[in-house]
């Protein structure tokens, strides 16, 4: 199950890209260069990267309001992402979507979603297409712990199970839905227990360990590709930053945040790669350089891009 060396390096690079991309977004939010809201993925990189490494380019994902990480892990173009965040015409959605609606349906990214849980039934729909067209694809459906208490979570997991759809439901349990701790919103500790309600496999993994995530999702993907149906995988992780643009973070302690920061998925994986001799310090530095320059390029591209013209305002309401 272990990925190849080059895959491991790729994963590291993706995780780092997400981290640095989000740091730039954070800066732009503070400076008002990014206008709307933004939900940062910092601290959760191992989930998107571990999961997306387990699928092929023509597989699908559905994403969330906290979607930049999924996007990058699914192979999105940073230039078009950053342009979208800056509301530019060259963005994935021509500036009409913004952070919460980045999508690239042709590349299998069925879209971020501003509605918590909103993408879950959509993932089922993609699963229906796969089955009806006899494709061998799968769908990775990402959502947060908060979404696990939405009605659509329930309806969707049940439907996926009774119709045996090739969907892997991935909960990113970062311990909070906005200010609401899972211990307040749930009367169970292990959210993966809920899989049993639908007669599907459920498992909880360390979501800060990219290889564990990769491994579990790979199993679930194989299961789905074999026609054995959906799975529910809960990845335990943590959101380092505030929920969105402004958040006084009164609902958690500094100590808690500090504890989780020590468990940094990026450092852990980097340390592992060094330990195993897969990457040297020097190579790592080189990767860091490449990542930073790709983000700089994205920023330049986005900042040089034009805003959408007002003529486009009423376009694309209806497809024809």
């Amino acid at each position, binding site marked *: 199950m272990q990925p190849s060396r080059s895959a491991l390096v790729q994963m590291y690079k993706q995780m780092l890209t997400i981290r640095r991309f989000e740091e730039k977004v954070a800066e732009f939010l503070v400076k008002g260069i990014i206008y709307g809201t933004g939900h940062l993925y910092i601290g959760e990189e191992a989930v998107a990267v571990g999961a997306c490494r387990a699928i092929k380019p023509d597989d699908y994902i559905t994403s969330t309001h906290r979607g930049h990480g999924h996007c990058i892990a699914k192979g999105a173009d940073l230039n078009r992402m950053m342009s979208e965040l800056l509301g530019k015409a060259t963005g994935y959605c021509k500036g009409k979507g913004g952070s919460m609606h980045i999508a690239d349906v042709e590349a299998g990214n069925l*879209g971020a979603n501003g509605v918590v849980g909103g993408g879950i*039934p959509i993932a089922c*729909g993609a699963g229906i297409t796969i089955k009806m067209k006899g494709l061998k694809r799968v769908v990775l459906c990402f959502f947060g712990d908060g979404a696990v208490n939405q009605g659509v979570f329930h309806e*969707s997991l049940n*439907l996926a199970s009774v119709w045996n759809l090739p969907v892997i439901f991935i909960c990113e349990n970062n311990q909070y839905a906005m200010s609401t701790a899972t211990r307040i919103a749930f009367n169970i500790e292990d959210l993966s227990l809920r899989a049993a309600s639908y007669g599907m496999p459920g498992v909880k993994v360390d979501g800060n360990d990219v290889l564990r995530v990769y491994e579990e999702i790979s199993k679930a993907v194989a299961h789905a590709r074999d026609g054995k149906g959906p799975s529910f995988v809960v990845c335990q992780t943590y959101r380092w930053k505030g929920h969105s643009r402004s958040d006084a973070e009164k609902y958690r302690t500094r100590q808690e945040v500090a504890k989780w920061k020590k468990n940094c998925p990026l450092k852990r994986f980097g340390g592992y790669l060094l330990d195993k001799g897969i990457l040297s310090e020097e190579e790592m530095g080189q990767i860091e350089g490449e990542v930073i320059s790709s983000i700089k390029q994205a920023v330049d591209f986005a900042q040089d891009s034009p805003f959408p013209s007002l003529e486009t305002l009423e376009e694309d309401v209806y497809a*024809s």
Partner: protein
Amino acid sequence: MPVNIVKLTYREALRRALREEMQRDENVYMMGEDIGVYGGAFGVSLGLMEEFGKEKIKDTPLSESVIVGAALGSALTGMRPVAEIMFMDFITIGMDQLINQAAKIHYMYGGKARVPMVLRTAGGSGTGAAAQHSQSLEALLCHIPGLKVVMPSTPYDALGLLKSSIRDDNPVVFIEHKLLYSQKGEMPQSEYLVSLGEAKVKRQGTDATIVAFSIMVPKALAAADKLSKEGISIEVIDPRTLVPLDSQRIVNSVKKTHRLLIVHEACGRGGFGAEILAQVEESEAFDYLDAPIRRLTGRNIPIPYSPGLERRTVPQEDDIIQAVSKLVVSE
């Protein structure tokens, strides 16, 4: 009846449309509660599961949100689902998926994705099903950019519009009326389509225009017949699709008749009649009006159960006659 003409009920016409489209395009399929062996609560899909199999005629669990959401997800990835919500009242359960997702994806994604899905549902009162099974909620949908809204009043239109809806690349809400399912009507034996966005002049007239849709069309036509005996000549227009709305045909008619009555079953307050009224007011027809535009609508109350009450809640033929009579004398 000429040989190339057939007579079908509204229900049968819908079934024929579904059958033809499923035969024509392998991406078309149906999903909904009890649409398989049961044939749907109103029998529209009766026999289709036997004909097309369970994969194409999917019985779902009792889960309206995922019915709408899964339909849209499969539409987004290449299928052309026809999903069914048994009673229109229950679209409220799938409302987020319909309004926030399906309707907006094409725009939010910068035009780079499409959601070619049809959501069929049965609206309207008249069956003693009371407040939670009798609503006409089209106004909620017409307000949402990205949705199309179709409300056929005859078997002919039901067939042609459903086929067009299935071929449309947008989410289309297709609203049938419970009391129309058993109505019969003629149509060609050969294939035909009715385009979305084309109103139909159901009856020519000169003294006043009635715009009516769904169940109110036969009622308006019956009223117009009676009125003609009193020498009042009524033009009846059925927009057939509310979004897109063929306002031009309505405007043209008003320019001719100088008087307009809008009739619908839904509650008046915030009903789509207000929008039609406003569009005519804002059009060049305003200068031709000899009397203020009038609406005749369902009352602003939930649909009551008791038959006598229920009947008085929504416009009946007599109410239309009265409203027109008032309108043609007013100046």
